[in-house]
């Protein structure tokens, strides 16, 4: 990833699956900082997936605004994607709790499940 980002001919768009794979947890923040820095320069765009609560905890404010949750509701066949800041209550709760803990605890999945229930219950 670093070679791609810092090479002489970087692409305009990258998709990385499970960004944290093979990287020591204490170095994740360095990788994220590099990515956020390169993206902020405006030349590249990046989409990445992660299962790592720790990585989510390192997201800067701007990257957190772009973070989305991929989920599947119980008894539903399809997966869905929703921007985390668009999940009801997320903006309020994130003022007092970090995203890493909310992800690890299942709060995000709880929130979308309860939100869906409110949409479908008459």
């Amino acid at each position: 990833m670093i070679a791609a980002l810092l090479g002489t001919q970087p692409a305009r768009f990258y998709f990385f699956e499970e960004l944290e794979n093979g990287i020591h947890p204490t170095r994740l923040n360095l990788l994220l900082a590099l990515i956020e820095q390169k993206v902020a320069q405006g030349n590249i765009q990046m989409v990445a997936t992660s299962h790592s609560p720790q990585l989510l905890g390192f997201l800067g404010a701007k990257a957190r605004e772009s973070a989305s949750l991929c989920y599947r509701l119980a008894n539903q066949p399809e997966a869905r994607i929703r921007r985390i800041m668009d999940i009801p209550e997320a903006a309020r709760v994130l003022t007092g709790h970090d995203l890493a803990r909310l992800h690890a605890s299942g709060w995000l999945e709880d929130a979308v499940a309860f939100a869906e229930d409110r949409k479908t219950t008459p």
Partner: protein
Amino acid sequence: MLVIPEDPRLDQYVLKPILEAMFKRLGRPRAIVRVCQDPVLGGVDQATNWNRIEEILDLYRGMVDIFLLIVDRDGQDGRRSALDSIEEKAREALPPGRHFLAENAWQEIEVWVLAGLDLPAGWSWQDVRTEPHAKETYFMPFARKRGVVEEPGEGRKRLTLEAAARYDRIRRLCPEDVASLEDRLAKLLVPPGLIRDAEAPWGGSQVPSSEAT
């Protein structure tokens, strides 16, 4: 409903299926029952600690209609009064239309599972019901006898699904906790559904104050 167990790691396998069966009996088969995974309270002392409960209420108060704290009674007569105190604090802390119930399982939640199953010959239901350490004394031997202790939840997942299919029997054999809880829930579920409170953040739910407990 958000269920707050003493420890979700094993309790979730028991509580979710039985509470879903309870809602089904109450005419709400599609009720969303989620088990709170964080914080792991890790025992009745933490589960009855108001600061820990308040933390959970803050995380979920905008989205959950009914919070339900479930702890083991462990043969302690005074546990109900501790739960009454928490219910009172929660009532003051929650916005209108949100409800908090607390129940103590006689004497441990694994007894609810055993209530839905056929006990081995020679076991007395009254003995199971009154044993303060029913998990070690009755549930685990039962799970070993069935050969399911290596399965998820040390057999709780499989055995509870089996038991929950006979929910009426659980309710009949556990009047002090399961039937009592069901009766309290029934008072909150005003047909044909929770009455919506337009002022609550997500549409909310509201029961007449005379029926709120």
